[in-house]
């Protein structure tokens, strides 16, 4: 085939492109993925019980602050990573910031807390449920995000996969936070932090295979 032939073919009956289509796709994936994770939480473990008695909304807010800040930075990064020539290098460092802050806060609250209470602060009541639920709730968001990213043209597939995994993990953790009965900062740092990070690592591993174009 001659290249001129191809150029003729590509420019015949050219369709105009609407701006902002790509961003809309990404937002859709986040909304659908988040809603799916939340529904899965409602139908499996359910909302946190005993809300009236010993519920401390401060801790739910803290968990959401961690997960939502990750989702925010991650989504902004994905919007750049799905476009060739924009690697979002400046923004990339901010991904680590929520992890850093939550780990510092966790260590501080252990240091200032009673050593007797450390076990309960770290393992809480339901560490095993947390361990299962966050990755499980992250599956649908991850699939939705990969679907959206494939509509773009990511050129750094490992990094894009990692951020997609991280955002999916954070969406899973957001859903789980509405069930989570464990109110301690070390618990958030260890379990939320590690599991969301793990989702990112899995995304980095399988991203290149899923995102190739």
């Amino acid at each position, binding site marked *: 085939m001659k290249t001129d032939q*191809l150029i003729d073919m590509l420019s*015949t009956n050219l369709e105009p492109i609407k701006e902002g289509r790509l961003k809309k796709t990404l937002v859709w994936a986040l909304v659908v993925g988040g809603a799916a994770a939340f529904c899965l939480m409602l139908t499996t473990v359910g909302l946190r019980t005993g809300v009236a008695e010993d519920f401390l909304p401060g801790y739910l807010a803290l968990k959401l602050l961690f997960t939502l800040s990750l989702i925010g930075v991650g989504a902004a990064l994905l919007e750049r990573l799905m476009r060739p020539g924009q690697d979002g290098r400046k923004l990339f460092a901010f991904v680590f910031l929520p992890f850093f802050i939550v780990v510092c806060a966790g260590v501080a609250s252990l240091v200032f807390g009673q050593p007797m209470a450390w076990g309960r602060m770290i393992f809480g009541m339901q560490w095993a449920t947390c361990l299962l639920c966050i990755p499980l709730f992250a599956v649908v968001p991850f699939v939705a995000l990969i679907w959206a990213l494939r509509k*773009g043209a990511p050129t750094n597939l490992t990094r894009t996969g990692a951020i997609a995994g991280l955002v999916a993990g954070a969406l899973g953790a957001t859903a789980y936070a509405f069930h989570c009965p464990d109110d301690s900062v070390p618990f958030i740092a260890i379990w939320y932090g590690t599991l969301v990070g793990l989702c990112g690592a899995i995304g980095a591993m399988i991203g290149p295979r899923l995102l190739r174009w």
Partner: protein
Amino acid sequence: MDVRSSEPELRALMIGGLDGGAAAYRTLLQKLSGQLRAYFKGHLSRISRGPVEAEDLVQEALIAVHTRRHTYDRSQLFTPWVYAIARYKFLDYLRRTKVNAADVPIDEVPELAVHDDSAHVESSLDLKRLLAELSPRARQTIQYVKLDGLSVSEAAVRSGMSESAVKVSVHRGLKALARLIREEKRS
């Protein structure tokens, strides 16, 4: 041709193309094909591959530019966008053909083509044969709209599909074509 001086021109052509200007778009692709050819030839000569492979890559990159043109952000520079696509396609080619990327000093040529290069060879791709591998619907709509030059509404009448279905079918068909070309060169 200096790249920096051509950036505003290429970008204007690209934006014209995104708004549906076929003439601007055709000029853009012609200019790009020269730059891409020089870029791929330069890289391929280091791993002793010939001009036919370079032409394959030029065409693959042009199809990628076309099917992914919605990923270009009009507020950004155009050259880095094209360069990232060309670089991605070249690395993908190396991976598929199992050339050790460590042997190829890719970053030694950071700019996208400092000169133009006109085509003297054809690619190894056979458009008719590739089209034959598409689904009948995609093949038909691409034939009508992209090769015969029928308008979308004419093609819709002839194929008994709605206009939006024709558009979707052409878009998917071109993407499938890009996929076929990638697989073709896996060997």
